[in-house]
């Protein structure tokens, strides 16, 4: 079983549209939506949820006002400025528990925090594990790890060849979590200066964690000069460009219809994505 994660650094370069198409193309796989705080893959795959589970993670401090003597020690020691006027701001609280350990009258308790939900679903294209982080919650990295672990279990149980993960944008905690244990990172970029800048950083993260990478240039024709810059940059680093996908409004049309683009159209975009998947499945089987 191989684990492939799709990343980009910059948001909105086309990760989810490509993963949605891989869902339609790959035969033996489970899908994992690791963009847990803005998950969109379900909009292309129309899942029916088989199992919904609460995600409890982390703690939040709570001050019992009847016991509190307003000595102010907790406010002084909190490194996150989460306590003001002897009340805890649950959004700033990082759940470290320092205050609960030092309160001289034991007025502070730590309460478990329900941080979201995760779902095991069926789609017309195979199983999907996805999640919804609660509004303004932390621990997205842990929820990503949980989604991946559940997807892996399904792949192992059903003897599936691939776990295909739709990754989050950026390079921080949920990205690091989605890379852990991956066999391949497919980096989707676009020929804009922002896209190139962000590709360089996410490529740095993949190298830091020793995950082999392939690059896909999406909307390559919006700026051919920049496309060449990406090609040169990747060739200097010995990183392969596995696909060049043209800009086409058909991607948005398919999204509006709630379908993977390869199921909606058989134009140039669909052809490029098909040959990208063929290449990946041949090379990483």
């Amino acid at each position: 079983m191989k684990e492939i994660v799709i990343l980009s650094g910059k948001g909105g370069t086309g990760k989810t549209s490509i993963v949605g198409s891989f869902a339609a193309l790959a035969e033996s796989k489970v899908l994992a939506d690791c963009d847990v705080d803005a998950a969109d893959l379900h909009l292309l795959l129309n899942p029916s949820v088989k199992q919904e589970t609460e995600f409890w993670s982390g703690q939040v401090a709570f001050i019992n006002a009847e016991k509190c003597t307003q000595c102010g020690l907790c406010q002084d020691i909190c490194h996150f400025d989460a306590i003001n006027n002897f009340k805890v701001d649950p959004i700033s609280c990082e759940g470290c528990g320092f205050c609960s350990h030092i309160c001289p009258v034991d007025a502070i308790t730590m309460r478990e925090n329900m941080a979201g939900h995760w779902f095991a679903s069926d789609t017309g294209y195979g199983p999907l594990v996805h999640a919804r982080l609660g509004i303004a919650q932390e621990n997205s990295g842990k929820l990503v790890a949980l989604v991946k672990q559940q997807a892996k279990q399904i792949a192992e149980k059903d003897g599936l060849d691939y776990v295909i993960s739709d990754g989050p944008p950026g390079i921080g905690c949920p990205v690091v979590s989605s890379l852990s244990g991956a066999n391949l990172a497919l980096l989707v970029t676009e020929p804009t200066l922002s896209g190139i800048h962000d590709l360089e950083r996410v490529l740095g993260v993949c190298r830091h964690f020793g995950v082999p990478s392939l690059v896909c240039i999406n909307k390559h024709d919006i700026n051919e000069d920049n496309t060449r810059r990406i090609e040169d940059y990747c060739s200097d680093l010995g990183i392969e460009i596995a696909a060049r996908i043209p800009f086409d409004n058909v991607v948005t049309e398919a999204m509006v219809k709630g379908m993977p683009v390869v199921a909606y159209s058989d134009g140039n975009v669909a052809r490029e994505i098909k040959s990208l998947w063929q290449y990946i499945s041949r090379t990483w089987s």
Partner: protein
Amino acid sequence: MIISVASGKGGTGKTLVATSLALALKDKHEVQLLDCDVEEPNDHIFIKPDIRHQNAVSIPVPKVDEEKCTHCGKCAEVCAYNAIAVVKEYVLTFPELCHGCGACSYLCPEQAISEVANDIGIIETGNAGAMDFVHGKLTIGQAMAPPVIRKVKELADNNKVAIIDASPGTSCPVVEAIKESDFCLLVTEPTPFGLNDLVLAVETVRQLDIPCGIVLNRTGAGNGKTEEYCQKENLPILLTIPLDTEIAHLYSRGVALVEGMPQWRKDFVGLFNKIVELVNERNSDTER
């Protein structure tokens, strides 16, 4: 006044809006642009600031004095992040897991733990003409963006027009970037993905009790569902930007919209005026 720019979905045009808003205002107001997308900061590409200062951002992580340590295990017991472990005669620390809360060093009965700085990113400050510029950069391989964002925000000046560019999503880095703003602009596109993530972003700003308005980018693609949603939720659409190859091409070359197409300047000044109006309305409502 602090105006933050967020989106939910990535790639909807936060950077375009934040940079053009800052540039459109810089001749009439004292403007500060703070790029809080510390994982993937891009504003500098469009602003081309002169960077004058660089400061490391660090969090305090534990350092154990082996001579004083009795291996009692108190530090491992109080650490909520499993960033310190005591195995027989050894204490292991994992700086990448540490949130820098300080509990272990304070609570160590032997005072064997001191806090040392672990660098996780840098802050760069400078200016582009009269405009102040600040951005943070999370170091490659580091996971925790919020402490870097906090450092960028410490430099926000309420007496100026401070524009904060946030990262995509709705979790802790976004909350850290937008909280305590006077107003949050949510940039979206009229597609199913854009709408799905806009709904999450609206819930987030409402939870933080920040007034917000919408910039609808790339109109003409997608469908009319986002406008229906905005109407139903009483969210003002303050600016629309069409899907346009010239705009996309300027963006791809790192040229700010108001510089490549100066006719847009008045639209961004108008956007700012609407924001000021909405903020004033709200302030007079809360006073009443």
